[in-house]
Structures are given as structure tokens and as C-alpha cells.
């Protein structure tokens, strides 16, 4: 079992848990904080997490360039779209 845990995916999992805690803290802060900025950071963190799940859990970093590229493009385009709609609509 210890040998199985020796994989980059385990380190990525720790990053994902930490990032979740960061987003939760940003999203539950009360008071006069800048909610808009916090929300943009929360969206960016979400798509960094999505990319990490794709690359390391779904093993797309070892996949053919076309498939990996489609996924990377998805992360970039959807993240940009959501941040744009959130800020400018």
C-alpha cells in the first residue's frame, strides 16, 4: 500500500484538499472583504483543480497530445468564459 501511495497523484491530492480549504475560507469570509475578487480567485482555483484531476487522476498527461490538448483547451476556455461572464455581465 505504501508503494502505491508513492505517486505524483498523492501529492496532487494534498494540493486539491488544500485548495478546497482555501476556496472554502475565501467563500465563507464575512465582513467588508472584496467578494468579487475572492470569487474570481475561487473560480481560478476551481479550474486549476479540474486540470490537476484531468492530468494526474485521469492520466491525461500521458495521453496523446490531441486528447490532452482538448482537455487543456476546455479548462482554459471555460474558465475564461465564466470569469468574463461573472465580471462583465
Amino acid at each position, binding site marked *: 500500500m505504501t508503494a502505491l501511495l508513492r505517486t505524483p497523484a498523492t501529492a496532487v491530492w494534498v494540493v486539491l484538499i488544500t485548495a478546497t480549504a482555501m476556496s472554502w475560507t475565501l467563500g465563507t469570509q464575512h465582513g467588508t472583504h472584496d467578494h468579487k475578487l475572492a470569487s474570481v480567485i475561487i473560480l481560478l482555483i476551481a479550474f486549476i483543480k479540474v486540470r490537476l*484531476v484531468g492530468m*494526474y487522476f485521469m492520466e491525461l498527461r500521458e495521453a496523446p497530445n490531441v*486528447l490532452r490538448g482538448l482537455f487543456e483547451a476546455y479548462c482554459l476556455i471555460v474558465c475564461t468564459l465564466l470569469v468574463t*461572464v461573472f465580471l462583465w455581465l
Partner: protein
Amino acid sequence: MPPTTTRPPPAVAAKKIPGEEGVWIFILGDICVFAVFFTYYLVQRSKHVDLFDLSQSTLNKNLGAVNTVFLLVSSLLVVLAVRAMRVAERTLAQRLILGAFLCGVAFIIVKVFEYSERIAAHQIPTTNGFYLLYFVLTGLHLFHLIIGLGVLTALFILARKADLSEHQWAFFEGGACFWHMVDLLWLVLFPLIFLVR
């Protein structure tokens, strides 16, 4: 004629598609459909910002975060199960898949509790546009998760077999990717609906 048995594909050899191509057409298609939903949610929010922010404040953010942890743990267990299968640790793989399955069940239990809180407070899909989108989007995700539990059951059955055919290996890896997709969609839905304001 018995199926051709193969050794597990090498983890890092030539670049290869994890699972079958068909699974990836489905996964990419599905996450694109959800991308439309994510965008639609923010467009609707932009039209009723105060209503959405007020309604969002009634959601239990802690339960959403707990469910994120359940799905992240389950995804790691599935990653480890795939690795265990590659080194022929079938019993360990079965236990890991069972652990992932139980995390999925825990997600459903938390979700049912969360929905019952909303319904008890008379915050239902017909209350306003926010609750409609909250129930539809989280409900669609829950539907995917329940299908995912069926997929994990199939992986558990495969992990009990002595040898897997090439096709069965592809199904195993593709099934694992489907479960990760369920995790991935929640990683956007939770912050979008519960946190972004």
C-alpha cells in the same frame, strides 16, 4: 473460445488513451454540456444578483465542502485501485474500490440531508430562479454520481477476475475516468453555486 488474456498495459510507455475512445467522446461531451449550464447559471445570476446572493446565503456551505472532500478521497482511492490492478494486487484493488463506493454513498447521504434542509425551509425549485438552478444542477450531478456507483460496482466485479482481456482493461481505466469526471464536475459546481457571489 476463451478471451485473450493480457498483462496490464504498462503505466508509462507510449502515449495512450486512458480507457476507450468512446468513453472520452462521452466525457468531453458531458463536461461541455455542463460548461453550458455553468455559464447559464452565471448569466441568470447577473440578471438577479441580489436574489441569487440572498438565496445562496441560505445554503449550507460546510456540507458542500464536506462532500468535496468525500469525492476527492474517493478519486484518490480509484487512482490507487488502478495502480493496484497494474501490479496484480486484486484484493487491495477491491478494497480501494469499495472505499470509493462508500465515499459516494456518503456524498448521497449528505446531499439528502442538504436537500431536506432546503425543503424544510420551503426553499424549493419553484421558490425562485436560484433554487431552481441549485436543484437542477446538483440533481444532474447526483444522477451522474449514481451512475458512477454502478460503474464502480462493475470495476469491483472486474477486480475479482483472475485475468482481464484488453477490452476489460480499457473498461476498467475508462470507468475510473468516469468516476473522476463526477469529481471534476463537483469541483466546479460547489464553488460556483455555493461560494461565488
